[in-house]
């Protein structure tokens, strides 16, 4: 499977995300000859324990993730414990039946994807389910020919250099950040998989929450 980096928009101090930034980012993609393809959407859902008494320790940050490239799969992550699970999407029905954890907040990551030679880019808004209240911006950079993260590292960094130069001209109030999780701690290797993507989205989610809390 091709590897990808999932980046999140880090606003400059004192600024917030807004739709104009998405428009500017889209124009940058098109300025480097990105060809617009279809729409994409990923969803992260926060699960919270249902408790009928006191006592016991239950995980915070228990997430479920649905990815567009794996329509029949679902990913469960407990990030503080470095646990990621890939399961059939029927796992959501099992969780529903168990009545031990309930789905609470859901966030959608959605937008358009673009082809740039051997790269595929996805630019997306972060929106609460059934809301247009923009919470963040993400970008996926996928390099199609290679599955090894280490082998692709240099070319990914070179792409980001080109990207940063294209963005610089627009004086945007922020920049995209790539913070690579320690995949080894999750039991994941160098060959890229959708579990790596799920782990990256969980990390992005943590960053988005930290950004909002930092502002508040």
């Amino acid at each position, binding site marked *: 499977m091709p590897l990808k980096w999932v980046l999140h928009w880090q606003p400059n101090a004192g600024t917030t995300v807004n739709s104009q930034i998405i428009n500017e980012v889209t124009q940058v993609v098109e300025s480097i000859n990105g060809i617009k393809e279809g729409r994409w959407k990923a969803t992260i859902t926060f699960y919270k*324990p*249902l*408790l*009928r*008494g*006191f*006592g*016991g*320790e*239950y*995980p915070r940050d*228990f997430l479920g993730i649905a990815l567009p490239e794996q329509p029949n799969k679902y990913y*469960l992550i*407990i990030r503080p*414990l470095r*646990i*990621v*699970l*890939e*399961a*059939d*999407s*029927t*796992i959501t*029905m*099992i969780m529903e*039946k*168990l*009545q*031990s*954890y309930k789905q609470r907040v859901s966030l959608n990551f959605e937008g358009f994807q673009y082809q740039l030679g051997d790269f595929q880019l996805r630019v997306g808004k972060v929106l609460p389910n059934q809301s247009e209240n923009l919470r963040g911006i993400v970008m996926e950079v996928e390099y199609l020919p290679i599955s090894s993260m280490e082998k692709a590292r240099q070319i990914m960094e070179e792409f980001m250099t080109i990207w940063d130069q294209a963005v610089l001209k627009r004086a945007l109030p922020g920049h995209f950040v790539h913070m690579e999780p320690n995949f080894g701690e999750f*039991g994941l290797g160098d060959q890229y998989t959708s*579990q790596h993507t799920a782990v990256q989205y969980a990390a992005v989610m943590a960053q988005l929450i930290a950004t909002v809390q930092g502002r508040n």
Partner: protein
Amino acid sequence: MECVVQGIIETQHVEALEILLQGLCGVRREPLKVHEICLKSGPNLGAVPSEVRLICNLEQTEPTWTVRFVGGAMRGAGAEQLSVLVRTVIESKASKNVLRLFYALGYKLDHELLRVGFAFHFQRGTQMTVTVSSVNKMPQLHNTDEAVPVTPGIQLVEVTAPASSETYTEVASAVSSFCEYLAPLLHLSKPGISTGVVPTAAAAAASLMSDGGGTTL
């Protein structure tokens, strides 16, 4: 949903049962070795106590995991009249971290079993599976190599068939009809309703073994 019946047979008659099943099912048997881990929710977790099973298929080169939820049996006059149990079942394949995840979510080990035997997957009016297996317990946690039979000399036979709310009547009928062919060797009934071994088993097994299943029972 699934329709399910169970029964027991003495290990000495399993070979005869296999001959009979081979003739009835028309497919090759497949080896069966599954480690079944039954987890229950911790004392305060959930609106109600819950149970989930993790099934590890040890027959593969690389073990594969399935999460299995078994719901309560269908109730009502219609269900009572059926000779098979109809119940909700939901399964999900999962990656190898699944036990660790459920422990982290607050689930505890209730019991674990190792089932070793064989299975037939076939079509007879509906998709059906027959499993014949010894049920083994593990004196040491998760140690499948040291498993010992729960009931030495006795094996469990289970017939299951997937169904839906629209098809369960027909599926139940197909399962019941199939079970009639096995009647001389063993009696199959709803789980929890045990009828023991059948008195005709020895004679039926001898007949099957003597002419390799050519005899009509």
